[in-house]
Protein backbone atom coordinates (compact mmCIF):
# COMPACT_ATOMS: atom_id res chain seq x y z
CA UNK A 1 0.00 0.00 0.00
CA UNK A 2 1.08 3.55 -0.67
CA UNK A 3 1.96 5.57 2.39
CA UNK A 4 -0.17 8.57 3.21
CA UNK A 5 1.49 11.93 3.65
CA UNK A 6 -0.12 14.81 5.50
CA UNK A 7 1.75 18.02 6.28
CA UNK A 8 5.07 16.29 5.64
CA UNK A 9 4.43 13.36 7.98
CA UNK A 10 4.10 9.83 6.60
CA UNK A 11 1.46 7.38 7.77
CA UNK A 12 1.47 3.70 6.94
CA UNK A 13 -1.89 3.22 8.65
CA UNK A 14 -4.90 4.88 7.05
CA UNK A 15 -7.14 4.33 10.06
CA UNK A 16 -7.37 7.34 12.36
CA UNK A 17 -8.96 6.80 15.74
CA UNK A 18 -10.91 8.86 18.23
CA UNK A 19 -10.66 8.29 21.97
CA UNK A 20 -14.20 9.11 23.11
CA UNK A 21 -16.72 6.76 24.70
CA UNK A 22 -14.39 3.90 25.71
CA UNK A 23 -15.39 2.20 28.95
CA UNK A 24 -11.86 2.59 30.35
CA UNK A 25 -8.49 4.04 29.46
CA UNK A 26 -7.06 0.53 29.47
CA UNK A 27 -9.49 -0.73 26.81
CA UNK A 28 -8.88 2.44 24.80
CA UNK A 29 -5.13 1.81 24.92
CA UNK A 30 -5.52 -1.81 23.80
CA UNK A 31 -7.88 -0.82 20.97
CA UNK A 32 -5.44 1.84 19.75
CA UNK A 33 -2.62 -0.69 19.73
CA UNK A 34 -4.75 -3.34 17.97
CA UNK A 35 -5.89 -0.86 15.30
CA UNK A 36 -2.33 -0.04 14.26
CA UNK A 37 -3.40 3.60 14.03
CA UNK A 38 -0.81 6.36 13.89
CA UNK A 39 -3.20 9.29 14.30
CA UNK A 40 -5.32 9.64 17.44
CA UNK A 41 -7.66 12.47 18.41
CA UNK A 42 -8.04 13.98 21.85
CA UNK A 43 -10.35 16.65 23.22
CA UNK A 44 -9.76 19.24 25.92
CA UNK A 45 -11.62 19.89 29.15
CA UNK A 46 -11.36 22.08 32.19
CA UNK A 47 -9.49 20.49 35.06
CA UNK A 48 -11.69 19.68 38.05
CA UNK A 49 -9.80 21.08 40.99
CA UNK A 50 -11.07 18.53 43.49
CA UNK A 51 -10.99 15.40 41.34
CA UNK A 52 -8.17 12.97 41.07
CA UNK A 53 -6.40 13.60 37.76
CA UNK A 54 -6.62 10.71 35.31
CA UNK A 55 -3.80 10.28 32.87
CA UNK A 56 -5.56 9.52 29.60
CA UNK A 57 -2.71 11.01 27.56
CA UNK A 58 -0.32 8.51 29.09
CA UNK A 59 -2.44 5.75 27.56
CA UNK A 60 -2.04 7.19 24.07
CA UNK A 61 1.38 8.72 23.75
CA UNK A 62 3.93 6.75 21.76
CA UNK A 63 6.56 7.78 19.21
CA UNK A 64 4.50 6.14 16.43
CA UNK A 65 1.37 8.10 17.18
CA UNK A 66 0.57 11.60 16.00
CA UNK A 67 -1.70 13.34 18.46
CA UNK A 68 -4.57 15.20 16.79
CA UNK A 69 -6.22 17.52 19.34
CA UNK A 70 -9.70 18.66 18.43
CA UNK A 71 -11.58 21.89 19.11
CA UNK A 72 -14.81 20.22 20.15
CA UNK A 73 -16.99 22.56 22.17
CA UNK A 74 -16.21 25.75 20.30
CA UNK A 75 -19.04 27.62 18.58
CA UNK A 76 -17.28 29.96 16.17
CA UNK A 77 -13.94 30.80 14.56
CA UNK A 78 -12.82 33.08 17.38
CA UNK A 79 -13.33 30.35 19.99
CA UNK A 80 -11.63 27.85 17.69
CA UNK A 81 -8.48 29.99 17.46
CA UNK A 82 -8.42 30.31 21.24
CA UNK A 83 -8.89 26.54 21.66
CA UNK A 84 -6.13 25.89 19.13
CA UNK A 85 -3.70 28.07 21.05
CA UNK A 86 -4.59 26.27 24.28
CA UNK A 87 -4.12 22.95 22.52
CA UNK A 88 -0.69 23.85 21.13
CA UNK A 89 0.41 25.01 24.57
CA UNK A 90 -0.91 21.92 26.36
CA UNK A 91 0.20 19.25 23.89
CA UNK A 92 3.13 20.87 22.11
CA UNK A 93 1.78 20.10 18.64
CA UNK A 94 0.66 22.12 15.62
CA UNK A 95 -1.71 19.36 14.51
CA UNK A 96 -5.35 20.29 14.90
CA UNK A 97 -8.68 18.74 14.10
CA UNK A 98 -10.78 21.84 13.61
CA UNK A 99 -14.39 21.18 14.51
CA UNK A 100 -16.95 23.92 14.93
CA UNK A 101 -20.45 22.60 15.52
CA UNK A 102 -22.61 25.06 17.41
CA UNK A 103 -25.74 22.92 17.11
CA UNK A 104 -25.80 20.31 19.89
CA UNK A 105 -28.57 18.19 18.35
CA UNK A 106 -27.00 17.20 15.04
CA UNK A 107 -23.42 18.35 15.69
CA UNK A 108 -23.18 19.49 12.10
CA UNK A 109 -20.18 21.67 11.28
CA UNK A 110 -20.64 25.39 10.62
CA UNK A 111 -19.10 25.85 7.17
CA UNK A 112 -18.70 29.63 7.32
CA UNK A 113 -16.91 29.62 10.65
CA UNK A 114 -14.86 26.55 9.72
CA UNK A 115 -13.50 28.26 6.60
CA UNK A 116 -12.79 31.48 8.50
CA UNK A 117 -10.98 29.59 11.29
CA UNK A 118 -8.97 27.53 8.79
CA UNK A 119 -7.67 30.70 7.12
CA UNK A 120 -6.59 32.14 10.48
CA UNK A 121 -5.11 28.95 11.93
CA UNK A 122 -3.02 28.20 8.83
CA UNK A 123 -1.46 31.65 9.19
CA UNK A 124 -0.69 30.82 12.83
CA UNK A 125 1.25 27.75 11.71
CA UNK A 126 -1.21 24.98 12.52
CA UNK A 127 -1.65 21.81 10.46
CA UNK A 128 -5.39 22.20 10.11
CA UNK A 129 -7.60 19.19 9.41
CA UNK A 130 -11.14 20.58 9.32
CA UNK A 131 -14.15 18.40 10.05
CA UNK A 132 -16.61 19.64 7.45
CA UNK A 133 -19.75 19.10 5.46
CA UNK A 134 -19.43 16.78 2.47
CA UNK A 135 -19.58 19.85 0.26
CA UNK A 136 -17.20 19.71 -2.71
CA UNK A 137 -17.07 23.48 -3.12
CA UNK A 138 -16.35 24.03 0.57
CA UNK A 139 -13.61 21.39 0.51
CA UNK A 140 -11.88 23.20 -2.36
CA UNK A 141 -12.14 26.48 -0.43
CA UNK A 142 -10.62 24.81 2.64
CA UNK A 143 -7.82 23.43 0.50
CA UNK A 144 -7.15 26.89 -0.97
CA UNK A 145 -7.08 28.28 2.58
CA UNK A 146 -4.23 25.87 3.36
CA UNK A 147 -5.93 22.95 5.11
CA UNK A 148 -3.53 19.99 5.40
CA UNK A 149 -6.42 17.62 4.67
CA UNK A 150 -10.20 17.81 4.59
CA UNK A 151 -12.44 15.64 6.75
CA UNK A 152 -15.94 15.51 5.28
CA UNK A 153 -18.62 13.65 7.19
CA UNK A 154 -20.27 10.42 6.07
CA UNK A 155 -23.21 10.96 8.42
CA UNK A 156 -23.77 12.82 11.72
CA UNK A 157 -21.21 12.18 14.47
CA UNK A 158 -21.82 8.98 16.39
CA UNK A 159 -24.76 7.94 14.21
CA UNK A 160 -23.12 4.79 12.74
CA UNK A 161 -25.19 5.34 9.59
CA UNK A 162 -22.38 4.94 7.09
CA UNK A 163 -21.73 6.95 3.93
CA UNK A 164 -25.01 8.85 3.54
CA UNK A 165 -23.05 11.51 1.66
CA UNK A 166 -21.55 8.96 -0.74
CA UNK A 167 -22.03 10.82 -4.04
CA UNK A 168 -20.60 14.05 -2.64
CA UNK A 169 -17.64 12.23 -1.06
CA UNK A 170 -16.91 10.82 -4.50
CA UNK A 171 -16.78 14.29 -6.01
CA UNK A 172 -14.63 15.61 -3.15
CA UNK A 173 -12.16 12.74 -3.58
CA UNK A 174 -12.03 13.27 -7.34
CA UNK A 175 -11.37 17.01 -7.01
CA UNK A 176 -9.20 17.23 -3.92
CA UNK A 177 -5.55 18.19 -4.01
CA UNK A 178 -5.15 17.34 -0.31
CA UNK A 179 -5.88 14.06 1.50
CA UNK A 180 -9.57 13.34 2.14
CA UNK A 181 -10.29 11.72 5.49
CA UNK A 182 -13.86 10.48 5.87
CA UNK A 183 -14.87 11.43 9.39
CA UNK A 184 -18.09 10.79 11.32
CA UNK A 185 -20.86 8.31 10.69
CA UNK A 186 -18.69 5.30 9.89
CA UNK A 187 -20.46 2.59 11.87
CA UNK A 188 -19.15 -0.69 10.46
CA UNK A 189 -15.97 -1.97 8.85
CA UNK A 190 -17.86 -2.29 5.54
CA UNK A 191 -18.50 1.48 5.60
CA UNK A 192 -14.79 2.13 6.05
CA UNK A 193 -13.91 -0.31 3.29
CA UNK A 194 -16.37 1.39 0.97
CA UNK A 195 -14.85 4.83 1.67
CA UNK A 196 -11.37 3.48 0.99
CA UNK A 197 -12.49 1.72 -2.22
CA UNK A 198 -13.82 5.09 -3.39
CA UNK A 199 -10.34 6.51 -2.97
CA UNK A 200 -10.55 8.20 0.42
CA UNK A 201 -7.08 8.76 1.88
CA UNK A 202 -8.08 7.60 5.36
CA UNK A 203 -11.03 7.07 7.71
CA UNK A 204 -11.48 8.45 11.20
CA UNK A 205 -13.41 6.06 13.43
CA UNK A 206 -14.39 6.44 17.07
CA UNK A 207 -17.88 5.43 18.22
CA UNK A 208 -18.08 2.25 16.15
CA UNK A 209 -14.95 0.91 17.85
CA UNK A 210 -15.45 2.38 21.32
CA UNK A 211 -18.99 1.10 21.89
CA UNK A 212 -18.54 -2.31 20.24
CA UNK A 213 -19.08 -5.39 22.40
CA UNK A 214 -15.36 -6.07 22.06
CA UNK A 215 -13.64 -2.80 21.12
CA UNK A 216 -10.21 -4.42 20.69
CA UNK A 217 -11.52 -7.00 18.20
CA UNK A 218 -13.51 -4.27 16.41
CA UNK A 219 -10.34 -2.19 16.11
CA UNK A 220 -8.72 -5.10 14.28
CA UNK A 221 -11.80 -5.47 12.04
CA UNK A 222 -11.56 -1.79 11.07
CA UNK A 223 -7.82 -2.09 10.48
CA UNK A 224 -8.38 -4.93 8.05
CA UNK A 225 -11.34 -3.21 6.36
CA UNK A 226 -9.37 -0.02 5.77
CA UNK A 227 -6.44 -2.02 4.39
CA UNK A 228 -8.69 -4.14 2.16
CA UNK A 229 -10.50 -1.09 0.83
CA UNK A 230 -7.27 0.73 0.09
CA UNK A 231 -5.70 -2.29 -1.59
CA UNK A 232 -8.80 -2.67 -3.77
CA UNK A 233 -8.62 1.01 -4.75
CA UNK A 234 -4.95 0.75 -5.64
CA UNK A 235 -5.53 -2.52 -7.51
CA UNK A 236 -8.22 -0.84 -9.63
CA UNK A 237 -11.84 -1.94 -9.30
CA UNK A 238 -13.65 -3.31 -12.34
CA UNK A 239 -16.33 -1.21 -13.96
CA UNK A 240 -19.94 -1.58 -12.82
CA UNK A 241 -22.10 -2.68 -15.73
CA UNK A 242 -25.19 -0.72 -16.76
CA UNK A 243 -28.62 -2.26 -16.32
CA UNK A 244 -29.21 -5.88 -15.33
CA UNK A 245 -27.30 -7.61 -18.10
CA UNK A 246 -24.79 -10.25 -16.97
CA UNK A 247 -21.21 -10.44 -18.19
CA UNK A 248 -20.06 -14.05 -18.24
CA UNK A 249 -16.85 -14.74 -16.41
CA UNK A 250 -16.65 -18.28 -17.82
CA UNK A 251 -16.90 -19.35 -21.44
CA UNK A 252 -20.49 -20.60 -21.77
CA UNK A 253 -20.26 -23.31 -24.36
CA UNK A 254 -16.63 -24.05 -25.01
CA UNK A 255 -16.77 -27.69 -23.85
CA UNK A 256 -20.14 -28.49 -25.48
CA UNK A 257 -20.87 -29.09 -29.08
CA UNK A 258 -22.72 -26.23 -30.76
Amino acid at each position, binding site marked *: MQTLEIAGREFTSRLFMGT*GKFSSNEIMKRAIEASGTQMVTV*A*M*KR*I*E*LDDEQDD*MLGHIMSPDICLLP*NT*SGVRDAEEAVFAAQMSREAFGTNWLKLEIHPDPRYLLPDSTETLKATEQLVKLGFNVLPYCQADPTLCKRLEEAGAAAVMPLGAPIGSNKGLRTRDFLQIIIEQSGVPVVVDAGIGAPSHAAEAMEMGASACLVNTAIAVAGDPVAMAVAFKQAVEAGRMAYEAGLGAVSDGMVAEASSPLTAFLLD
Partner: protein
Amino acid sequence: MNVKVNGKEVSVQGTTLTDLIVQLALPQNGVAVAVDNKMIPRTQWSDYILREGLQIVVIKAACGG
Protein backbone atom coordinates in the same frame (compact mmCIF):
# COMPACT_ATOMS: atom_id res chain seq x y z
CA MET B 1 -6.61 37.94 47.02
CA ASN B 2 -9.21 35.83 45.28
CA VAL B 3 -9.31 34.64 41.67
CA LYS B 4 -11.60 32.22 39.88
CA VAL B 5 -10.09 29.03 38.55
CA ASN B 6 -12.40 27.10 36.22
CA GLY B 7 -15.30 28.97 37.78
CA LYS B 8 -14.34 28.21 41.35
CA GLU B 9 -13.27 30.85 43.88
CA VAL B 10 -9.66 30.33 45.01
CA SER B 11 -7.79 32.29 47.67
CA VAL B 12 -4.28 32.87 46.27
CA GLN B 13 -1.38 32.50 48.66
CA GLY B 14 1.45 33.59 46.33
CA THR B 15 1.68 36.33 43.74
CA THR B 16 2.34 34.71 40.35
CA LEU B 17 0.63 32.22 38.08
CA THR B 18 3.33 29.68 38.89
CA ASP B 19 2.57 30.11 42.61
CA LEU B 20 -1.10 29.36 41.89
CA ILE B 21 -0.34 26.27 39.82
CA VAL B 22 1.88 24.96 42.62
CA GLN B 23 -0.70 25.84 45.29
CA LEU B 24 -3.41 23.89 43.45
CA ALA B 25 -1.02 20.99 42.79
CA LEU B 26 -1.84 21.13 39.09
CA PRO B 27 0.35 19.24 36.63
CA GLN B 28 2.89 21.46 34.83
CA ASN B 29 2.74 19.49 31.60
CA GLY B 30 -0.20 18.56 29.41
CA VAL B 31 -2.12 21.63 30.55
CA ALA B 32 -2.74 25.11 29.22
CA VAL B 33 -3.70 28.22 31.17
CA ALA B 34 -5.73 31.20 30.06
CA VAL B 35 -6.33 34.39 32.01
CA ASP B 36 -9.38 36.42 31.02
CA ASN B 37 -9.67 34.39 27.81
CA LYS B 38 -6.05 34.88 26.73
CA MET B 39 -3.67 31.95 26.65
CA ILE B 40 -0.58 32.50 28.79
CA PRO B 41 2.44 30.45 27.66
CA ARG B 42 4.09 28.51 30.46
CA THR B 43 7.32 30.42 29.90
CA GLN B 44 5.47 33.50 31.21
CA TRP B 45 3.79 31.91 34.25
CA SER B 46 6.54 32.85 36.70
CA ASP B 47 6.42 36.53 35.67
CA TYR B 48 2.65 36.79 35.49
CA ILE B 49 1.42 38.76 38.53
CA LEU B 50 -2.08 37.84 39.63
CA ARG B 51 -4.74 40.40 40.45
CA GLU B 52 -8.00 40.25 42.39
CA GLY B 53 -10.91 38.78 40.42
CA LEU B 54 -9.03 37.34 37.44
CA GLN B 55 -10.82 34.57 35.57
CA ILE B 56 -8.42 31.69 35.06
CA VAL B 57 -9.06 28.61 32.95
CA VAL B 58 -6.87 25.52 33.13
CA ILE B 59 -7.46 22.77 30.57
CA LYS B 60 -6.04 19.32 30.00
CA ALA B 61 -6.57 16.38 27.65
CA ALA B 62 -9.86 14.52 27.60
CA CYS B 63 -11.18 11.59 25.63
CA GLY B 64 -12.81 12.67 22.39
CA GLY B 65 -13.20 11.91 18.71
